[in-house]
Protein backbone atom coordinates (compact mmCIF):
# COMPACT_ATOMS: atom_id res chain seq x y z
CA UNK A 1 0.00 0.00 0.00
CA UNK A 2 1.31 3.44 -0.90
CA UNK A 3 0.25 6.82 0.46
CA UNK A 4 -2.10 7.62 -2.43
CA UNK A 5 -3.96 4.33 -2.01
CA UNK A 6 -4.11 4.86 1.77
CA UNK A 7 -5.55 8.38 1.24
CA UNK A 8 -8.19 6.98 -1.12
CA UNK A 9 -9.20 4.33 1.41
CA UNK A 10 -9.42 6.99 4.13
CA UNK A 11 -11.88 8.95 1.99
CA UNK A 12 -13.85 5.85 1.04
CA UNK A 13 -14.11 4.10 4.40
CA UNK A 14 -13.38 6.85 6.91
CA UNK A 15 -10.51 7.04 9.38
CA UNK A 16 -11.77 4.36 11.82
CA UNK A 17 -9.13 1.81 10.80
CA UNK A 18 -10.66 -0.79 13.15
CA UNK A 19 -13.58 -1.08 10.70
CA UNK A 20 -11.36 -1.75 7.70
CA UNK A 21 -10.87 -5.28 6.38
CA UNK A 22 -8.05 -7.10 8.14
CA UNK A 23 -5.63 -7.14 5.16
CA UNK A 24 -5.98 -3.38 4.51
CA UNK A 25 -5.67 -2.64 8.22
CA UNK A 26 -2.38 -4.51 8.47
CA UNK A 27 -1.01 -2.80 5.34
CA UNK A 28 -2.12 0.61 6.68
CA UNK A 29 -0.41 -0.03 10.02
CA UNK A 30 2.84 -0.80 8.21
CA UNK A 31 2.56 2.35 6.10
CA UNK A 32 1.72 4.54 9.11
CA UNK A 33 4.79 3.29 10.95
CA UNK A 34 7.00 4.24 8.01
CA UNK A 35 5.47 7.37 6.44
CA UNK A 36 5.01 10.81 7.99
CA UNK A 37 2.84 11.80 5.03
CA UNK A 38 0.47 8.88 5.70
CA UNK A 39 0.23 9.97 9.36
CA UNK A 40 -0.58 13.53 8.26
CA UNK A 41 -3.31 12.20 5.95
CA UNK A 42 -4.80 10.17 8.79
CA UNK A 43 -4.78 13.24 11.07
CA UNK A 44 -6.58 15.33 8.46
CA UNK A 45 -9.17 12.59 7.93
CA UNK A 46 -9.69 12.27 11.69
CA UNK A 47 -10.13 16.04 12.02
CA UNK A 48 -12.88 16.07 9.37
CA UNK A 49 -14.53 13.01 10.91
CA UNK A 50 -14.56 14.59 14.38
CA UNK A 51 -15.98 17.79 12.98
CA UNK A 52 -18.75 15.98 11.13
CA UNK A 53 -19.70 13.97 14.23
CA UNK A 54 -19.76 17.12 16.36
CA UNK A 55 -21.29 19.67 14.01
CA UNK A 56 -23.74 17.84 11.76
CA UNK A 57 -27.22 19.22 12.40
CA UNK A 58 -29.29 17.63 15.17
CA UNK A 59 -33.07 17.96 15.35
CA UNK A 60 -34.52 20.00 18.13
CA UNK A 61 -36.35 17.81 20.75
CA UNK A 62 -39.40 20.05 20.32
CA UNK A 63 -39.37 19.30 16.58
CA UNK A 64 -39.24 15.55 17.30
CA UNK A 65 -42.22 15.83 19.67
CA UNK A 66 -44.08 17.94 17.11
CA UNK A 67 -43.39 15.36 14.41
CA UNK A 68 -44.68 12.47 16.54
CA UNK A 69 -47.83 14.35 17.54
CA UNK A 70 -48.46 15.48 13.95
CA UNK A 71 -48.14 11.95 12.56
CA UNK A 72 -50.40 10.49 15.28
CA UNK A 73 -53.00 13.14 14.42
CA UNK A 74 -52.84 12.44 10.70
CA UNK A 75 -52.80 8.66 11.10
CA UNK A 76 -55.92 8.84 13.28
CA UNK A 77 -57.78 10.42 10.33
CA UNK A 78 -56.03 8.55 7.51
CA UNK A 79 -57.66 5.56 5.81
CA UNK A 80 -56.37 2.09 6.68
CA UNK A 81 -53.29 0.85 4.78
CA UNK A 82 -53.87 -0.22 1.18
CA UNK A 83 -54.15 -3.99 0.82
CA UNK A 84 -51.68 -5.39 -1.73
CA UNK A 85 -53.23 -6.45 -5.08
CA UNK A 86 -53.39 -10.05 -6.35
CA UNK A 87 -50.06 -9.87 -8.23
CA UNK A 88 -47.92 -8.92 -5.20
CA UNK A 89 -49.70 -11.64 -3.16
CA UNK A 90 -49.01 -14.20 -5.88
CA UNK A 91 -45.35 -13.14 -6.00
CA UNK A 92 -45.16 -13.44 -2.21
CA UNK A 93 -46.59 -16.96 -2.47
CA UNK A 94 -44.03 -17.92 -5.11
CA UNK A 95 -41.08 -16.41 -3.26
CA UNK A 96 -40.22 -19.64 -1.39
CA UNK A 97 -39.55 -21.22 -4.80
CA UNK A 98 -37.18 -18.41 -5.80
CA UNK A 99 -34.02 -20.08 -4.36
CA UNK A 100 -34.58 -22.91 -6.83
CA UNK A 101 -34.10 -20.33 -9.56
CA UNK A 102 -36.07 -18.85 -12.40
CA UNK A 103 -36.10 -22.25 -14.15
CA UNK A 104 -38.23 -23.73 -11.38
CA UNK A 105 -40.64 -20.80 -11.50
CA UNK A 106 -40.86 -21.08 -15.31
CA UNK A 107 -41.51 -24.85 -15.06
CA UNK A 108 -44.28 -24.23 -12.51
CA UNK A 109 -45.83 -21.60 -14.78
CA UNK A 110 -45.69 -24.00 -17.79
CA UNK A 111 -47.37 -26.79 -15.80
CA UNK A 112 -50.10 -24.41 -14.65
CA UNK A 113 -50.67 -23.23 -18.25
CA UNK A 114 -50.73 -26.79 -19.59
CA UNK A 115 -53.19 -27.95 -16.94
CA UNK A 116 -55.35 -24.91 -17.47
CA UNK A 117 -55.41 -24.85 -21.27
CA UNK A 118 -55.18 -28.54 -22.34
CA UNK A 119 -58.52 -29.56 -24.00
CA UNK A 120 -60.45 -32.25 -22.10
CA UNK A 121 -60.59 -35.69 -23.74
CA UNK A 122 -63.91 -36.46 -25.47
CA UNK A 123 -64.24 -39.94 -23.89
CA UNK A 124 -62.19 -41.66 -21.23
CA UNK A 125 -59.78 -44.15 -22.72
CA UNK A 126 -60.55 -47.83 -21.92
CA UNK A 127 -57.39 -49.23 -20.39
CA UNK A 128 -58.41 -52.81 -21.45
CA UNK A 129 -59.16 -51.85 -25.07
CA UNK A 130 -56.01 -53.38 -26.60
CA UNK A 131 -56.60 -56.68 -24.74
CA UNK A 132 -60.03 -57.10 -26.35
CA UNK A 133 -58.43 -57.38 -29.81
CA UNK A 134 -56.30 -60.37 -28.77
CA UNK A 135 -57.54 -63.82 -29.88
CA UNK A 136 -58.53 -66.04 -27.00
CA UNK A 137 -58.31 -69.86 -26.93
CA UNK A 138 -61.64 -71.49 -27.87
CA UNK A 139 -62.88 -68.48 -29.85
CA UNK A 140 -64.70 -69.46 -33.03
CA UNK A 141 -63.37 -67.36 -35.90
Amino acid sequence: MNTAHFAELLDRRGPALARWPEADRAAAAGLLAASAEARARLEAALALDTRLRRDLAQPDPAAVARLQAGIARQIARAPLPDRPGPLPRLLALLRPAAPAGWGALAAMACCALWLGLAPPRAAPEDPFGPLQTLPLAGDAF
Partner: protein
Amino acid sequence: MPMLLALPFPWALPRLAPGARPAPRPMTDPASSDAALMALAGNGDRAAFNLLVGRHGERALRVALRILGDAAEAEEVAQEAFLRAWQAAASFDPARARFTTWLHRIVVNLAIDRTRRRAGAPSTGLEAAAELADAAPGPEADAAAAEARAALAVALGALPPRQRAAIALAYEEELSGAEAAAALEVSERALEGLLRRARQFLRSRLEGS
Protein backbone atom coordinates in the same frame (compact mmCIF):
# COMPACT_ATOMS: atom_id res chain seq x y z
CA MET B 1 -65.00 -36.06 19.25
CA PRO B 2 -62.71 -33.77 21.23
CA MET B 3 -62.17 -31.84 17.98
CA LEU B 4 -65.91 -31.35 17.63
CA LEU B 5 -66.06 -29.96 21.11
CA ALA B 6 -63.46 -27.39 20.19
CA LEU B 7 -65.57 -26.02 17.29
CA PRO B 8 -67.15 -22.64 17.93
CA PHE B 9 -70.77 -23.75 18.32
CA PRO B 10 -72.90 -20.93 19.68
CA TRP B 11 -73.59 -22.83 22.89
CA ALA B 12 -69.87 -23.32 23.40
CA LEU B 13 -69.08 -19.59 23.24
CA PRO B 14 -68.51 -17.85 26.55
CA ARG B 15 -71.44 -15.74 27.50
CA LEU B 16 -71.16 -12.29 28.95
CA ALA B 17 -73.25 -11.41 31.93
CA PRO B 18 -75.88 -8.79 31.12
CA GLY B 19 -74.33 -5.35 31.43
CA ALA B 20 -70.77 -6.68 31.42
CA ARG B 21 -68.37 -5.02 28.97
CA PRO B 22 -66.21 -7.09 26.64
CA ALA B 23 -62.57 -7.41 27.64
CA PRO B 24 -60.46 -4.58 26.16
CA ARG B 25 -58.23 -5.37 23.18
CA PRO B 26 -54.75 -6.35 24.34
CA MET B 27 -52.27 -3.45 24.29
CA THR B 28 -49.58 -3.51 21.64
CA ASP B 29 -46.37 -4.72 23.23
CA PRO B 30 -43.86 -1.85 23.10
CA ALA B 31 -41.02 -4.37 23.06
CA SER B 32 -42.20 -5.93 19.79
CA SER B 33 -39.81 -5.95 16.86
CA ASP B 34 -40.21 -3.44 14.04
CA ALA B 35 -41.38 -6.22 11.73
CA ALA B 36 -44.06 -7.34 14.19
CA LEU B 37 -45.27 -3.76 14.67
CA MET B 38 -45.42 -3.26 10.90
CA ALA B 39 -47.46 -6.44 10.54
CA LEU B 40 -49.93 -5.05 13.09
CA ALA B 41 -49.92 -1.66 11.37
CA GLY B 42 -50.63 -3.39 8.06
CA ASN B 43 -53.81 -4.71 9.68
CA GLY B 44 -54.81 -1.21 10.69
CA ASP B 45 -53.31 -1.01 14.21
CA ARG B 46 -52.57 2.70 14.60
CA ALA B 47 -51.08 2.29 18.07
CA ALA B 48 -48.48 -0.11 16.69
CA PHE B 49 -47.54 2.38 13.99
CA ASN B 50 -47.27 5.20 16.53
CA LEU B 51 -44.81 3.04 18.48
CA LEU B 52 -42.69 2.85 15.33
CA VAL B 53 -42.87 6.62 14.93
CA GLY B 54 -41.71 7.03 18.53
CA ARG B 55 -38.86 4.62 17.91
CA HIS B 56 -37.59 5.98 14.59
CA GLY B 57 -39.03 9.48 14.24
CA GLU B 58 -35.96 11.29 15.54
CA ARG B 59 -33.63 9.42 13.23
CA ALA B 60 -35.82 10.03 10.18
CA LEU B 61 -35.98 13.72 11.05
CA ARG B 62 -32.20 13.89 11.54
CA VAL B 63 -31.47 12.32 8.15
CA ALA B 64 -33.94 14.66 6.43
CA LEU B 65 -32.46 17.67 8.23
CA ARG B 66 -28.92 16.77 7.21
CA ILE B 67 -29.89 16.39 3.57
CA LEU B 68 -32.13 19.45 3.37
CA GLY B 69 -30.40 21.81 5.81
CA ASP B 70 -33.75 23.32 6.72
CA ALA B 71 -35.66 22.35 9.88
CA ALA B 72 -39.18 23.12 8.62
CA GLU B 73 -38.70 21.25 5.34
CA ALA B 74 -37.12 18.33 7.19
CA GLU B 75 -40.20 18.04 9.41
CA GLU B 76 -42.47 18.02 6.37
CA VAL B 77 -40.39 15.37 4.65
CA ALA B 78 -40.20 13.12 7.73
CA GLN B 79 -43.96 13.42 8.23
CA GLU B 80 -44.64 12.62 4.57
CA ALA B 81 -42.31 9.60 4.77
CA PHE B 82 -44.17 8.15 7.76
CA LEU B 83 -47.55 8.73 6.13
CA ARG B 84 -46.35 6.86 3.04
CA ALA B 85 -45.05 4.09 5.26
CA TRP B 86 -48.49 3.85 6.91
CA GLN B 87 -50.27 3.62 3.56
CA ALA B 88 -47.89 0.90 2.36
CA ALA B 89 -47.71 -0.96 5.68
CA ALA B 90 -49.75 -3.91 4.41
CA SER B 91 -47.32 -4.56 1.57
CA PHE B 92 -44.16 -4.25 3.71
CA ASP B 93 -42.20 -7.50 3.52
CA PRO B 94 -39.62 -7.96 6.32
CA ALA B 95 -37.97 -10.72 4.30
CA ARG B 96 -36.86 -8.18 1.71
CA ALA B 97 -35.64 -5.27 3.87
CA ARG B 98 -35.47 -4.10 7.46
CA PHE B 99 -38.04 -1.49 8.42
CA THR B 100 -35.34 1.12 9.08
CA THR B 101 -33.73 0.59 5.67
CA TRP B 102 -37.14 0.88 4.00
CA LEU B 103 -38.02 4.02 5.97
CA HIS B 104 -34.65 5.64 5.27
CA ARG B 105 -35.08 4.96 1.57
CA ILE B 106 -38.39 6.84 1.58
CA VAL B 107 -36.90 9.73 3.58
CA VAL B 108 -33.81 9.99 1.38
CA ASN B 109 -35.80 9.88 -1.87
CA LEU B 110 -38.25 12.54 -0.67
CA ALA B 111 -35.45 14.78 0.62
CA ILE B 112 -33.37 14.48 -2.56
CA ASP B 113 -36.45 15.16 -4.72
CA ARG B 114 -37.20 18.26 -2.71
CA THR B 115 -33.58 19.46 -2.91
CA ARG B 116 -33.65 19.05 -6.68
CA ARG B 117 -36.95 20.87 -7.01
CA ARG B 118 -35.59 23.91 -5.23
CA ALA B 119 -32.31 23.81 -7.17
CA GLY B 120 -33.19 27.10 -8.86
CA ALA B 121 -33.95 28.81 -5.56
CA PRO B 122 -31.25 30.55 -3.48
CA SER B 123 -29.15 28.15 -1.43
CA THR B 124 -30.92 27.36 1.82
CA GLY B 125 -27.70 25.89 3.13
CA LEU B 126 -26.31 29.40 3.30
CA GLU B 127 -29.46 30.64 5.03
CA ALA B 128 -29.32 27.84 7.57
CA ALA B 129 -25.68 28.63 8.18
CA ALA B 130 -26.48 32.28 8.78
CA GLU B 131 -29.23 31.31 11.23
CA LEU B 132 -26.87 29.03 13.11
CA ALA B 133 -24.23 31.75 13.31
CA ASP B 134 -26.76 34.29 14.60
CA ALA B 135 -28.29 31.87 17.08
CA ALA B 136 -25.30 31.72 19.35
CA PRO B 137 -24.09 35.18 20.28
CA GLY B 138 -22.34 35.53 23.60
CA PRO B 139 -19.08 34.10 24.85
CA GLU B 140 -16.22 33.87 22.40
CA ALA B 141 -16.07 30.06 22.47
CA ASP B 142 -19.75 29.78 21.61
CA ALA B 143 -19.31 32.22 18.76
CA ALA B 144 -16.35 30.22 17.41
CA ALA B 145 -18.32 26.96 17.64
CA ALA B 146 -21.27 28.56 15.87
CA GLU B 147 -18.94 29.82 13.18
CA ALA B 148 -17.52 26.32 12.69
CA ARG B 149 -21.02 24.86 12.40
CA ALA B 150 -21.97 27.58 9.96
CA ALA B 151 -18.91 26.87 7.79
CA LEU B 152 -19.75 23.16 7.76
CA ALA B 153 -23.39 23.90 6.87
CA VAL B 154 -22.27 26.09 3.95
CA ALA B 155 -19.86 23.41 2.71
CA LEU B 156 -22.54 20.70 3.01
CA GLY B 157 -25.01 22.96 1.19
CA ALA B 158 -22.61 23.10 -1.74
CA LEU B 159 -22.44 19.30 -2.07
CA PRO B 160 -24.60 17.50 -4.65
CA PRO B 161 -27.71 16.05 -2.93
CA ARG B 162 -26.68 12.39 -3.23
CA GLN B 163 -23.27 13.07 -1.69
CA ARG B 164 -24.97 14.97 1.12
CA ALA B 165 -27.33 12.03 1.63
CA ALA B 166 -24.33 9.66 1.71
CA ILE B 167 -22.74 11.77 4.47
CA ALA B 168 -26.03 11.96 6.40
CA LEU B 169 -26.43 8.17 6.33
CA ALA B 170 -22.76 7.34 6.97
CA TYR B 171 -22.74 9.40 10.16
CA GLU B 172 -25.96 7.83 11.41
CA GLU B 173 -25.11 5.52 14.32
CA GLU B 174 -26.57 2.01 14.24
CA LEU B 175 -26.74 2.07 10.43
CA SER B 176 -24.31 -0.30 8.73
CA GLY B 177 -22.64 0.48 5.41
CA ALA B 178 -24.85 -2.09 3.70
CA GLU B 179 -28.01 -0.48 5.11
CA ALA B 180 -26.83 3.01 4.15
CA ALA B 181 -26.15 1.77 0.61
CA ALA B 182 -29.56 0.08 0.45
CA ALA B 183 -31.26 3.29 1.62
CA LEU B 184 -29.56 5.14 -1.24
CA GLU B 185 -30.30 2.25 -3.63
CA VAL B 186 -26.65 1.86 -4.62
CA SER B 187 -23.99 -0.79 -4.06
CA GLU B 188 -21.64 -0.46 -1.09
CA ARG B 189 -18.82 0.37 -3.49
CA ALA B 190 -20.87 3.14 -5.09
CA LEU B 191 -21.65 4.51 -1.62
CA GLU B 192 -17.92 4.57 -0.86
CA GLY B 193 -17.41 6.50 -4.10
CA LEU B 194 -19.98 9.11 -3.05
CA LEU B 195 -18.37 9.39 0.39
CA ARG B 196 -14.92 9.75 -1.12
CA ARG B 197 -15.94 12.67 -3.33
CA ALA B 198 -17.89 14.29 -0.47
CA ARG B 199 -15.00 14.05 1.99
CA GLN B 200 -12.49 15.42 -0.53
CA PHE B 201 -14.78 18.36 -1.26
CA LEU B 202 -15.50 19.10 2.41
CA ARG B 203 -11.85 18.94 3.35
CA SER B 204 -10.88 21.37 0.61
CA ARG B 205 -13.72 23.76 1.55
CA LEU B 206 -13.09 23.62 5.29
CA GLU B 207 -9.31 24.00 5.25
CA GLY B 208 -8.35 26.79 7.59
CA SER B 209 -11.89 27.45 8.84
